[in-house]
């Protein structure tokens, strides 16, 4: 495929990702709405979210004005075809078409990169775990990114030791501290272990997993159980949509583990808002 067509296709992927919420997330929001009491704050917020989702999809406009950080996860075999320059051309085009806000600021000078392209923006990962020929994009807004956190165990303030009970305590503490500020109901990506950098990286990668996985969740049976029980426990805290109270605080919890060195035990929690915008195409 010529790069001309390729960057057009990737620009279309950006457009659809920005304007159309994934079906699994929308289904989870609908299920949540049915579970909340009629006329409650929670129900009003969820109804408003769902109406917004429908309107953005129909009008092909960004469903949230914060079009976020763009992160591409690309099958490493495509490294020579889907190059950073092709990606940047696509991002500049999508920005010009009004599907992305001017959202990229130089951290030293404060000036805006009006085409959303700079050294390091968008974020591009060439990975070996993608399906062949796959390009996946995630848009993550600043409000939710600000709510991600990392714990170093043991943490006496929450009674968290270096075991799965300690992990549970970290995750529930993170949910309570976040309240509605990350635009709840959110989705958590969690990484147990790793170093600080891979902890955040792997936690964020978990947000690529669909909410209703056929496999039932994480590969490891213990982690699968933990995903289910933590979702239930987090929702019992009663934070609710936008933090106004209710039964729906999270739509999903996705956990992975990485080896650690004896001296470190990190638990990293990546918070994603309800506007979990992810999309893929196959080249």
């Amino acid at each position: 495929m010529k790069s001309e067509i390729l960057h057009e296709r990737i620009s279309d992927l950006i457009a659809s990702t920005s304007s159309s919420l994934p079906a699994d997330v929308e289904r989870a929001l609908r299920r949540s709405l049915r579970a909340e009491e009629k006329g409650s704050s929670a129900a009003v917020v969820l109804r408003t979210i769902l109406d917004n989702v429908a309107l953005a999809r129909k009008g092909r406009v960004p469903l949230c004005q914060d079009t976020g950080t763009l992160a591409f996860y690309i099958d490493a075999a495509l490294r020579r075809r889907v190059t950073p320059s092709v990606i940047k051309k696509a991002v500049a085009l999508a920005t010009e078409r009004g599907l992305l806000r001017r959202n990229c600021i130089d951290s030293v000078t404060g000036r805006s990169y009006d085409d959303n392209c700079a050294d390091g923006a968008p974020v591009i990962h060439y990975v070996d775990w993608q399906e062949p020929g796959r390009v996946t994009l995630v848009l993550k807004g600043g409000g939710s990114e600000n709510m991600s956190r990392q714990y170093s165990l043991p943490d006496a303030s929450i009674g968290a030791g270096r075991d799965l009970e300690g992990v549970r305590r970290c995750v529930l503490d993170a949910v309570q501290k976040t309240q509605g500020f990350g635009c709840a109901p959110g989705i958590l990506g969690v990484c147990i272990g790793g170093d600080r950098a891979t902890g955040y990286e792997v936690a964020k990668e978990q947000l690529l997993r669909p909410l209703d996985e056929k496999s039932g969740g994480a590969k490891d049976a213990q982690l699968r159980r933990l995903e289910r029980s933590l979702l239930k426990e987090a929702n019992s805290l009663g934070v609710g949509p936008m933090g106004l109270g209710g039964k729906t605080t999270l739509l999903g919890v996705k956990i992975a583990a990485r080896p650690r060195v004896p001296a470190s035990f990190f638990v990293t929690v990546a918070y994603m808002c309800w506007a979990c915008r992810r999309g893929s195409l196959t080249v």
Partner: protein
Amino acid sequence: MIEIGYPFYRRKICALKAGDAVSISGMIHTGRDRFHKFFADGGKIPVDFRDGALYHCGPVCVREGGGWRVVSAGPTTSVRENPYEPAFIESSGVRIIIGKGGMDSATLAAMRRRGCIYVQAVGGAGALYAASVRRVAGVDLMDEFGAAEACWHFEVEVFRGVVAMDAHGRSLFADVAASSSARLAAALG
């Protein structure tokens, strides 16, 4: 859903309670970070906020046929205006603050004194709120602050939100933070 329309008289506003779902119609004005700093520095506020509504919002608007079209107009986080809002409420006579995330106890106290409420709009719902703007009646402080921080005058219809802080000193945010903290403590034993 309780419908409220401009002008937002004190009697109407004080009848609302934290947790009430509301649908706002009529004129509202945007103001965010630079607007509040400008006010605090003694700048002249270009519109009369008496019995009016202030919206913490940095909209995306495009010029169209001599006027404006609102593309996206969701709420921005309100806590940044905490240092300025009590004085603004006291001096402007504003009745409704719309934003997201809630505001501090000093703001809540000013709301109680003057008869003002805080309405939580839904974060991320930029497309829907843009669609609720029937007309852009004008814009002030555009040259000074730029489009995202200017004071826009929107005529809205069925702008949905939830009263999260009422004029009687109750804040849903404070309630939920306290109850979730107690539940967490119970869960962690």
